[in-house]
């Protein structure tokens, strides 16, 4: 699975710390997700999509 979180973060000009604060997770968790070391739960994926105002499919896709 790959994700576009880093791209969306750049578009919205927010860093990992700010995104982590909005989601109530740690910055390391955002880093792990961006680097495909951890695949988030559906709940967290939906929360990330809500922050960026997009769909989960735009953020995450199968390789």
């Amino acid at each position: 699975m790959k994700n576009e979180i880093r791209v969306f973060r750049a578009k919205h000009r927010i860093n990992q710390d700010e995104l982590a604060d909005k989601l109530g997770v740690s910055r390391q968790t955002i880093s792990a997700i961006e680097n495909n070391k951890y695949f988030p739960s559906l709940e967290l994926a939906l929360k990330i999509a809500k922050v960026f105002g997009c769909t989960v499919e735009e953020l995450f896709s199968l390789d």
Partner: protein
Amino acid sequence: MKLLNHKFKWPATAVFYGSLLIGIYSLSFENQLDEIWKLPVYSLFGNENGFLGTGLGKKGWTETALFNEILTVVIVLSGFIASFSREKVEDELTTKIRLESLSFAILMNYALVLVANFFFFDFAYLYVLIAFLFAPLIMFNLIFQVRLFNYYKLDDEK
């Protein structure tokens, strides 16, 4: 999963490893720790005349030093508190790390039990049993701390 407050984590960790060292000392060396807090206790299980007629391990009222029993309670409780306290930012990844560490520790423990079963006999096996009383908690705590250390090192942006 309900977890304890983060402020308990480091004091409990200090007590856990400190009491473990005292426990190892009480098993390994000639010491007077077995004489501390001698009190009458009721033993639910044992022979009428004790182990090989020595009176030790007798069923019913007997006298024993409660130091080891209290130390066991301290080790187990502090180990649980240290391992089941919240991280500063507790999220689904830290919860996943905690549960994976717990299952890995249980697997490791029983792998070691199987190995020890064929290499320790008679009274030596008694020490193995005592070790395996605490081994899952120790391995869980160590594996969890090491994995958390690696997790906190994830630092690709700063």
